């Protein structure tokens, strides 16, 4: 069941102030990163950038192209030049584009897209490579790897046009996330983890454990899903499968529902912790900026943590 997901509340998604606020967010992130760099934990790694760093004695196996022949001419000893190492991350954003991300709580789509854009902005402005994938019952690359801050506008435009439809099946879509060196970097999975069988999400997360990347799961949940304001006779319809059930809900039933839902969320958090995956419970009712900053402060290569 496809839903018209491309135009809904675009103004709310990326209003004119959002990008400004995003820049402020990026500055805040860099400031905090610089503040953290004043400590002793600078990386000793050396790379092959143009920034010269030092000389050292040649050792067998060194690349002979890095031998400084001028120093050899003066000192008759072999030295190799050491350059500054500049790391570039490949940031992967896997955005859940299933129907449940837009119905019945459209705020989930709004926050998910904002998260996508925010992460992408940070990645592009930080000189990292950005890839955007949409996942529902499959995994599809939405954009070729982007690099450079000039792609932010294109990213935003693409996010505006993203269609949210189809069922969610993490057990199928996550394994299809392209393998190879591309999988190195930082992966952000933005999803509600809901599907026809939420328990399968737990199994599907095992896939993320095998990724050679720093993996983050941002679980976007709306308060209406945690504690639905439903009572009485209802005809429930699953937005992804279209299945309908008539139920008669009492307050006791709702209490049991809330308990079960919270237990499921806790189970996902525990599973992620046990598999060294970062899990973020994103509440669509909370301010975006506060949650995003709190998310970055948890530690991420993207934020220099």
């Amino acid at each position, binding site marked *: 069941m496809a839903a018209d997901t491309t135009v809904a509340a675009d103004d709310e998604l990326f209003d004119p102030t959002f990008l400004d606020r995003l820049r402020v967010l990026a500055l805040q992130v860099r400031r905090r990163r610089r503040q953290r760099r004043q400590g002793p934990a600078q990386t000793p790694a050396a790379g092959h950038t143009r920034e010269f760093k030092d000389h050292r004695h040649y050792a067998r196996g060194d690349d002979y192209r890095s031998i400084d022949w001028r120093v050899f001419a003066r000192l008759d000893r072999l030295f190799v030049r050491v350059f500054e190492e500049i790391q570039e991350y490949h940031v992967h954003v896997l955005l859940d584009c299933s129907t449940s991300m837009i119905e019945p709580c459209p705020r989930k789509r709004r926050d998910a897209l904002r998260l996508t854009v925010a992460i992408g902005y940070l990645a592009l402005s930080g000189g990292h490579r950005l890839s955007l994938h949409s996942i529902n019952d499959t995994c599809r690359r939405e954009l070729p790897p982007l690099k450079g801050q000039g792609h932010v506008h294109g990213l935003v435009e693409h996010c505006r046009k993203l269609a949210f439809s189809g069922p969610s099946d993490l057990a199928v879509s996550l394994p299809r996330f392209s393998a190879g060196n591309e999988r190195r970097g930082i992966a952000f999975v933005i999803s509600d983890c809901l599907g026809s069988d939420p328990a399968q999400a737990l199994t599907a997360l095992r896939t993320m454990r095998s990724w050679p990347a720093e993996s983050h799961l941002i679980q976007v949940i709306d308060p209406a899903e945690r504690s639905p304001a439903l009572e009485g006779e*209802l005809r429930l319809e699953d937005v*992804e499968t279209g299945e309908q059930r008539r139920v008669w809900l009492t307050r006791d039933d709702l209490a049991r529902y809330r308990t079960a839902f919270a237990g499921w969320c806790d189970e996902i958090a525990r599973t992620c912790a046990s598999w060294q995956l970062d899990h973020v419970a994103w509440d669509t009712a909370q301010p975006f900026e506060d949650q995003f900053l709190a998310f970055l402060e948890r530690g991420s290569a993207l934020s220099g943590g």
Partner: protein
Amino acid sequence: MRFLLPGALAWLLLLAIPLILHLVRPRARAVRTSTLAFFLGLDRRQQESPWLRWLKRLLALVLSASVVAGVVLALSRPVVAPSDESVRSVVLLVDRSASMATRADDGRTRLEQVVASARARLAGLSAGCALTIIAHDARSDIVVAATIDRREAERALTALTVHPVASDAATHAAALALAGRLAAAATPAQVWDLSDAPAADTPDTILPGGVTRVPLSVALATPVNAGISAADLRRRPLEPGQLDVFVEISATLAPNTAAEAVLVANIDAQEVALRTLALSADADGHCAVQRLSFGLDHPTGAVLRLSLRLTGDQLPLDDLVELRLPELTPLHVLLVADEPDPFLVLVLAGLEKAGGMRVERLAPAAWTPTTVADVVVFHRWLPPTWPERAVLIVDPPGNLSPLTVTPITDGLPVESPRCPDASHPVLFGVASARVAALQTAVLSGDGGLQPLWLSPAGPLLLAGDVKSGRAVILAAAPARSARLALTAAYPLLIANALLWTSEPARERRTGHRHRTGTLLPLAGKTLTWSDGTAVTLRGGMAALDRLGSWSTDGGDLGSAALLSLEESRLPRAPTTSTAVVGTASGDWLSGDLLPLLVALVFSVLLIDAWLCHRWGVS
């Protein structure tokens, strides 16, 4: 099926309420959810399929509509009439005589059977039908007069009790005539003749036009009963101190069967006689009436109690008779005559010598009406007016109202006078066929005088009630009737006459013996029965509607017993009876359906509650 209150059916419009509630009840709100998984994990009740939910709703609608319809139908009082009768009034003529106390094998009396059947039939009448209830035995009482209040009629029916009183065809016909007159007030009408009498016993011709008799007999198919249909005590005329007890037994048994009954006589709880009777029934179940007598020699005590036992006896009311014993003191006889007949004097002297009486002689010139004596004997002399006492008149010389005497000059020899009533107590033991007398006059009397001997010329022996006493008049000259005076018949006749005429006066002192149902003038304010029951006398009258001996605080004594051949000989239901009560009892879906509907409503409510709580049908 009809409705006693058809107007209440308008409440069936209330059925629209559950229907509207069913149709316009809030539909299930459609809610789109991210996933159904967490809802499916709730109670199994939440997982009902749509068709099951629809079925439950339909069931709830049916149940609620059933409750409403049941209540409304109950209010409209539906009845299923055993027959399609359309009458404006019904008179229930209920027999409450002694035979209605007959208990069937199920333990119910005939009256209970009648009441139950009548109530069942009443339910089939329309609400506007007027009901009258007449209970009858020897007399008829209007228990309920023309009412449409069905509850009042049913209460009155339930309150009916059997009276140990005999009824016969005449009393039944009188009651039927009364019922017919009452029923004629609103025709077409029916008289439900509820009795144990065979249905065809009474003709319908005594009922007015527009009134139909519906005979509803509850007679048993094979009644079994033996009862005392008659009992009496007599002093032996010539043997003072000796009593004769006369008992008549009537019985009804199964056709062509035999049984043995035992009669026990007790005086003050001491058995004084025991007789065994062999009963044999004919093809109709009737046994020949058995009469027996036994003597009591100088009995001491107050009450003779006769009880009859028969295995399987279904009517106990005729099995017990209490008789107060007469006093055995000598009779006081006053002989008024100028020159009394020597044979008469001889007879009286003999009786006096035996101790049975005390005889005084009085010259006619000294006659005063205030003379105290049990019996006054006039011989060839009569007072100016009829004395207010028991009298024996021998050879009356002239008329004395109400007695008319036609003298026969020189007399008329009469042999073997004809006896219209040979069983009369005056003739007990008298061999009338051997009598030869010289009739001196032809007697005739008005009122209660009954001829006992008849000659070709006319009556020569009369007996009966005259004014306030009994009288026996003999128009014969003993001295000139050798075969009368010299035979044993003469003293026996005189002794019988003296005892019989003095009997009412003696009974006033020693106790009346009556059949139940008799209305008596009694002295005193309270009548106390032998079982201790005290009844207040109203207007100095008492209806003897119980069995046993009784006394009043005014000094009156007596006893009452059923003593009815008609009641003891129980009627037997004809094998081809066409009108038998109980058609309603055989059909479970007949009569008033109110209890059935109430039960159904409660059942539906219980089912509804159980389904609602157990299976969520609501």
